[in-house]
């Protein structure tokens, strides 16, 4: 890295880490119902909202009722979005007259946004109306993010509370997440993004002349809009000259801010955060990465504070940060080395395929690891065109169950599942009773943690395996050989872990990928959520065991190292065979040629 890139990276992490404590404390106050700077403005709104919706804010819920409320709410939002996509053609705010989505694409997309995945088998600018983007996708960006956050908070309460079944009130937590955290930040940062050039309007798409007109081959269509093919089955084309182009418009900034902040990742445009209208400058780029990491990073402090031991929060953050920095370094190095096969052609420099000029390599590498370490999935670089070793980093971060900062809330509750597993294994090895934060870890907690951590892994391996023997699934690959396997593996990893980024060459809008993907996203989201809530319920019932000489300290360096190892070993044991047939063998082929 050159001096500028070092400065860029160091300034970025300094600002992020400096905000963990103040913002983490703010979130703790929000969830504990204490006064915050925004209270004078928001308390009346909050009260009005509860009255409107018939919520008794003082009512405590056990884990089952909390879970039922959560599932009900999410299913409802998903069903409404499904209907909205099927009816897009007749709904308002559609200046481009976009038609309805097909049923399988509607199903995939509705579940995708409901589960905070934002996997996109459609291209935003040519398929989604402003109404769909705003009242469908953007609303889900808020609600799905808030859903993830409340599960983490309920799990924290499970560790902290003693001999009770009470985990808080789902509706209150959901409302506070949205009103006090997601909305104010989105508002401020959306306006900031506009200052950098992100668009925000409701105009019809704009036509501008081209300075130099362009001639291209356009497939000929018959009257019903199907491509005409010649005797050999090749599409018939005609030469067309374009003197002008249509530039898409829309309310992009308001969506962009919550897309990053809520680790959703669904782009307004097909090119996502590489599109100049979504991410116009190096500064907007750094701000977007910052938003991706802000809530998840700060929640570790919220956790430490609520658990009465801030050091414990810092220990988790240190583990996350170490893996993030390591993967960024490997990715940077791999891309800076470039593609030797391209270098042989007389080309000089880093691997620029699928990267934008303005961000620089540091800004691209940091974005790639931030978006996959969390469950964001927005991209400013096309991961499919990374070098094999470079592409292995985002893929691995997803496969490690997205605990490197992780999705908002999801990162913390998944990390806590890893902590429980790490404590349990350490307990077995040194012959001590496994306990964490004064709560005994027993069979039920282990089951729930394993479920939270391994659900996605099972889904990924099973469905990637099925895809390899289904001819239509294989034909969706865009690149031949080992890289094709990487595309499929990445797709199921991304969907099962609710990430949403892609090795985007894969043609995902097929019946096979729409339906299998919907299954992966649904189970990959709600199995860990139910497991976490069930664990929270059983932990809250337990009595507190004061620490003794026999207690394993979990807020010190040795445990942080141990936790890192457990995360890496679980990931490696599950996925090494599959990875060695994909990116690893491709790297060897590339270097060896």
């Amino acid at each position: 890295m050159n001096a500028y890139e070092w400065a860029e990276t160091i300034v970025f992490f300094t600002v992020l880490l400096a905000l963990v404590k103040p913002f983490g404390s703010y979130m703790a106050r929000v969830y504990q119902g204490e006064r915050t700077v925004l209270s004078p403005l928001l308390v009346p709104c909050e009260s009005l909202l509860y009255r409107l919706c018939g919520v008794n804010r003082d009512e405590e819920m056990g884990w089952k009722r909390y879970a039922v409320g959560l599932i009900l709410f999410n299913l409802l939002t998903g069903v409404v979005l499904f209907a909205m996509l099927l009816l897009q053609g007749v709904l308002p705010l559609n200046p481009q007259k976009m038609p309805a989505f097909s049923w399988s694409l509607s199903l995939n997309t509705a579940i995708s946004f409901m589960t905070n995945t934002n996997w996109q088998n459609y291209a935003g600018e040519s398929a989604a109306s402003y109404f769909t983007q705003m009242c469908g996708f953007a609303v889900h960006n808020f609600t799905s993010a808030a859903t993830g956050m409340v599960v983490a908070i309920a799990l924290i309460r499970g560790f902290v509370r003693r001999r009770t079944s009470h985990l808080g009130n789902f509706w209150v937590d959901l409302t506070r997440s949205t009103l006090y955290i997601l909305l104010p930040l989105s508002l401020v940062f959306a306006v900031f993004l506009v200052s950098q050039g992100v668009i925000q309007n409701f105009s019809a798409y704009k036509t501008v002349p081209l300075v130099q007109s362009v001639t291209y081959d356009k497939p000929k269509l018959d009257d019903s809009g199907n491509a005409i093919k010649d005797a050999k089955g090749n599409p018939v084309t005609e030469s067309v000259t374009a003197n002008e182009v249509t530039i898409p418009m829309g309310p992009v900034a308001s969506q962009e801010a919550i897309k990053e902040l809520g680790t959703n990742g669904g782009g307004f445009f097909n090119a996502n955060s590489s599109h100049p209208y979504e991410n116009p400058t190096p500064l907007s780029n750094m701000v977007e990465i910052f938003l991706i990491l802000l809530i998840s990073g700060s929640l570790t402090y919220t956790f430490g504070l609520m658990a009465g031991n801030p050091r414990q929060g810092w220990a988790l953050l240190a583990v996350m940060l170490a893996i993030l920095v390591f993967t960024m370094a490997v990715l940077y190095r791999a891309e800076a080395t470039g593609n030797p096969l391209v270098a042989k052609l007389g080309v000089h420099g880093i691997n620029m395929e699928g990267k934008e000029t303005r961000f620089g390599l540091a800004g691209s590498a940091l974005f790639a690891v931030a978006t996959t370490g969390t469950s964001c999935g927005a991209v400013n670089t096309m991961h499919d065109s990374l070098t094999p070793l470079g592409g292995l980093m985002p893929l691995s971060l997803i496969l490690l169950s997205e605990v490197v900062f992780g999705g908002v809330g999801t990162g913390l509750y998944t990390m806590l599942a890893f902590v429980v597993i790490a404590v349990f294994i350490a307990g077995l090895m040194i012959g001590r009773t496994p306990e964490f934060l004064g709560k005994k870890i027993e069979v039920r907690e282990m089951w729930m943690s394993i479920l939270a951590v391994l659900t996605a892994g099972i889904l990924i391996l099973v469905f990637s395996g099925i895809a390899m023997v289904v001819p239509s699934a294989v034909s969706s690959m865009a690149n031949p050989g080992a890289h094709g396997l990487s595309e499929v593996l990445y797709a199921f990893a991304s969907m099962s872990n609710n990430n949403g980024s892609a090795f985007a060459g894969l043609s995902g809008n097929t019946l096979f990928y729409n339906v299998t993907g919907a299954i992966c996203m649904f189970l990959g989201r709600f199995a860990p959520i139910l497991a976490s809530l069930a664990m929270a319920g059983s932990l809250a019932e337990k009595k507190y065991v004061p620490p003794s000489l026999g207690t394993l300290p979990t807020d010190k360096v040795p445990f942080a190292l141990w936790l890192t190892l457990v995360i890496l070993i679980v990931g490696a044991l599950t996925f090494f065979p599959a990875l060695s047939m994909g990116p690893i063998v491709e790297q060897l082929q590339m270097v060896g040629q």
Partner: protein
Amino acid sequence: MKDLKPAILMFVVFTVICGGIYPALVTGVAYALFPTQAKGSFITDRSGRAVGSALIGQPFSDPKYFWPRPSATTAFAYNPMGSGGSNAGPTNPDYLKTVGDRVQLLRDTGVTGPVPADLVQASASGLDPHISPEAALIQVPRVAKARGMSEEAVRTIVAQVTEGRQLGFLGEPRVNTLELNLKLDALR
């Protein structure tokens, strides 16, 4: 099922707040503070007609223009309705042949020595308006010859259009090909 009522009502309320009020509010504030950016950063000619957006690149292949990065947008290069990258894998033989052809095209115009990667590898969005200063400078002899200008004069204009790192340290120095080519055309 006593939670069904709050589920429905909460969803309605959040749809109104997050899907209606929030984007409307952002639009209002954006139009008040940053109207040009909110509307798309369009460049207008003397009559006020939009001739392009400063953020969205355009396809150039004529020798008298600086060429932008290769673009993998659908239908034709730099089609704003089909943003996206090539998604070509690094060992894909078809992709390597395409890059080889692009290098050859530059060699045919007299470029010698190593070719800057950004000039032969497609951008992520397919709409990247920028190229690196190196990628601009190796095109100077061709553009100068096609326009009958001195290389020095063209190089001066490239320098005027070159943007440095934002705030002095963010991102990479870059040249906006659309602005550069518009500026060259305006000279006549």
